[in-house]
């Protein structure tokens, strides 16, 4: 999904404000805690990853304003190396990918929500759409997807996570299988059903 990463880069750069990441060992520690079943670890981990993803994207865009090469997995992988270090276990890496997927989703949803709030709040007319690709890019859509995913999660948590990993972090089926400790065949089935369900759900929004 090259365009997603591209967009993400642009988006992140556009906000301008960047938080700096916490010390690396914090991340490793939180990751281990989360892996060991401490759900709170995830909550504390997310802001760090969030900040890091934005920082990387921002830097990349600064160096290469027309960057279109930024793959989500590459982005995520770089964040991983910076935050955790190369010597962490493979299981740690996949869990990091899971965190990154959730973070990506949050970044996009936050932006979409902010934009919607701007439109409502200011009352001012925004003429911000030079490219007519934009109508395909309706932020409400993203919120709708997010809401549909929340509903899906309420019904079947695992399916929502599979979608998240696949579509917000660009993970391969193998990687998803690794993260969720499932067989690849199961991931495939889950993904197929969940995607169809979401499509059906969204088609009637």
């Amino acid at each position, binding site marked *: 999904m090259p365009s997603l990463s591209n967009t993400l880069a642009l988006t992140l750069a556009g906000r301008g404000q960047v938080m700096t990441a916490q010390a690396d060992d914090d991340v490793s520690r939180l990751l281990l805690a989360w892996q060991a079943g401490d759900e709170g670890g995830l909550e504390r981990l997310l802001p760090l990853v969030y900040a890091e993803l934005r920082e990387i994207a921002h830097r990349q865009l600064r160096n290469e304003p027309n960057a279109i090469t930024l793959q989500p997995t590459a982005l995520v992988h770089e964040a991983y190396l910076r935050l955790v270090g190369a010597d962490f276990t493979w299981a740690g890496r996949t869990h990091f990918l899971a965190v990154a997927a959730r973070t990506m989703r949050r970044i996009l949803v936050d932006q979409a929500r902010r934009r919607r709030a701007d439109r409502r709040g200011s009352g001012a007319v925004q003429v*911000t759409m030079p490219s*007519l690709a934009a109508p395909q890019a309706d932020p409400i859509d993203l919120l709708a997807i997010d809401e549909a995913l929340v509903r899906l999660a309420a019904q079947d948590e695992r399916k929502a996570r599979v979608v998240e990993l696949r579509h917000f972090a660009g993970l391969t089926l193998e990687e998803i299988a690794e993260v969720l400790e499932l067989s690849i065949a199961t991931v495939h089935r889950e993904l197929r059903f969940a995607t169809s369900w979401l499509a059906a759900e969204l088609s009637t929004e």
Partner: protein
Amino acid sequence: MADARWHLIERLFHEALMQSETARDGWLDAHCDDAGIRVEVRRLLAADAQLAQAPLLEAAVQAAARDVAASEVTSSNDARVGPWRLLHELGRGGMGIVWLAERADGAYDARVAIKLLRSTLASEELMRRFRTERQILADLDHPNIARLVDGGTALDGTPYLAMEYVPGTTITAWAEAQGLGLEARLQLFLRVCDAVAYAHRALVVHRDLKPSNILVTPDGVPKLVDFGIAKLLDATSADDTTDLRPMTPAYASPEQVRGERLTVATDVFSLGVVLYELLTGTQPFRKAGDDASSARQRILTTEPPLPSRLVSGGAHAPGRHVDAARLVGDLDTIVQTALRKDSVERYASVERLADDLRRHLDGRPLLARPATPWYVLQKFVGRHRATVIASVTGVALLVGATTFYTKSLQRARDVAEAERVTAEQTTAFLTDMFRRADPTRARGETITVRAALDEARVRLATDLTSQPAVRARLLQAMGVTYRNLALFATADTVLRDALSLYARLEGTAGGVGTASVLEQLAQVQVARTAAEGRVEEGRAFATRALAIRERIGDPLPLAGALRQLAAFQLQTSLDSARAAYTRALALQQRALTAEHREVLTTRYSLAMVALRQGRVQEAIDALREVHVTRARVLPRDDPQRGESANLLAGAWAQLGQHDSARVYYEEALALVQRVFGPEHVETADGLHNLATAVQAMGDRDSSIALLERALAIRRATYGALSGPVANTLMTIGNAHNIARAYRESLPWYREAITVYDAVLPSGHRSAYYPRFNLGIALNSLGRLAEAETVLREALRVAETSGGADAHTAPMTQHMLGEVLRGQGRTREAIAMYKTALDRLVAVVGPESFRVGHPAEALASLAAERGDHAEVVRLYRAYWPAVVARFPDDAAGLGTARSRFASALQVTGESAAADSVRMADPSIPSPR
């Protein structure tokens, strides 16, 4: 969405994907008999197919992100689309973004609304379709329809439409803001109808009518926007059907939800929804917190409350402007007619809808009629979709059976050959019948099944006259289907025709065909029994069938015939029924495994007989085994599992073990709710049953709450004058009785008696219970003369109805004893108690709590007259029963205990007396 439902949908989805694409529809029909679930699975399959071509989700996430990016980093004051300069955004929706725009070249001074379309279609395809549709849409020239001005693709390929710009608010918001009264709302709505009718005459269906597409300008002119756009955007619109249309669920019609062909009837429905909202301020099919799937489900299955009822509730804003009294009658009927689930039942056109509204405004009678019997019947069948599907399956089974007999008979090659030909012709006719029923392939919808049957019946009168065997079999198949559709009279006629054909084919002695039709006729009479008392006729059919089956001697059909006959004997002689079931079981056990469904069914019936004959413990033991086995061998949602849970609960209740009863009733209720949903009659039964256990445990309020839900469903389903309604009325009375609120119970019992007497043949056992309970209430209120009259009536019913439970008559005698005793007629009372006691001991055994009632009464009377020996004798004989008679009544039991002790003391048994006082029930056994 229930968990089981979700998993079932998932499973069917994956399994269907394994079928070839063309076989999926048929496969699904064959593997799922819940129409609602099939709709969901089909939607998912359609989504899956679409996703293969256009990966919607990736595209959406990607595009969303791109849009966010664009909004962050760039801006422009000169965005153009074709000849239009975009001014500012007006709104966003399912189809894309709408902009206000003006001519960039200043060619003329007009403002338009530009829709930048989002579509899963490739833009070439969209444009190709657009060109064909554009002329039609552009020709729509009506003052209340926003015109299509232009359309094309922007530089980047995004398709767009330019429409007349309507500065206005939605019709519902406008009506509220202006504080419009009822008449003004209707006049406004009529202008909308006229515009839609105009478009329909131009052969354009809107397909997405909703308030946000019906705008009102500041000077009060309604304008419809987006006419025909939904179709333009339809992803597979060549044939007007699709499963992934961007419809708005709250306003979609049932056929739209099902992805069927869309006609003007769809717009009629959506207009009905808008009218509903204008009148009540509420959307008929919307509920807070719905997901899209529940919303669709509601449109398919739920009848919205009448507008008048909603407004009179007062909770809604338009209540200030709309008077509920004016909605009752005409307007309720009009809205209902527009919102019929079946498009055939709706107004045939928007003109007809408008016409009725004008008639209402003029005070003339409507053309639409309130719910006709046919409509009611259809609703009934709609609620029994499972049955309807079963009927189709029934036909399939019959065809299968035909083939089976073909193979098993093979007495002679030519006979076998004739049978084979017959079977093939039968199958061909039936297949054709269902193919004709629905050109888009039958999806199990009620109306089409019935229509197919009716048509086939007509056709059969002239077709195949030279082939009586085929005709007989077809009539039989159709008869079974009519029966499953609850069209008993037609079923009866058709099956009798089949019977006379078989009589000619098989001779007067009859063969397999004759026997099977006789059995089916008997079954039809069972169904008619409750309503019309066709016991005798049904039994006659069953008896004749049995004679033929005996002669042929095939064990399983013979067992079936025995069971069929027993079903009638249950109404008249429990002993005969028991004998028939026992023999049927023996036959089945020889041919089938112990866990076979049919074996379990017969064992279940035997347990039921045991229960009704008062052998409760035996019944419980047998039922437990049946229930456990069914739990092991049947699917989780199989109705038979609910059936045995229910009967087990009933048996425990008879033993006074209401907490055990409650557990099984809850199991049964959970099952039916899972399978049938919250508004189904089966659910009403479950609620009712659970309520009986809850009330016996002393929770009057919860019990009545459950019963009122059951009552509402039953009234809506069966009508106010019906046995099930009477039953629930009586049970509400019981809740009061148990709480000793006797005065409150009287009206419920009286109403139950009235309803029962109106619907039952005289002497039916159901007429007994409310009388008995009313007798108890009157007795407790000290209205003894009335109590005696009612109880004597009850006793007469109990004695004359052979199907009544064995303990009913003696329990009534016990109650009569109480009344007589209260009137000071002691001698008569004692005689009555004694009869009751002896009879009860004979039918329920000496330890039943029922026996405790007359035993305790007789003991207390004996004590009063100083007959201590008699007191001791009675208590010795029936002490466990007396203890069971006071399950939660320590004071009552205490009194009995001290009476017992005193009597023992007086008769010289001090040690035993002390033991009784120490409350050890094991002591008072004979020395």
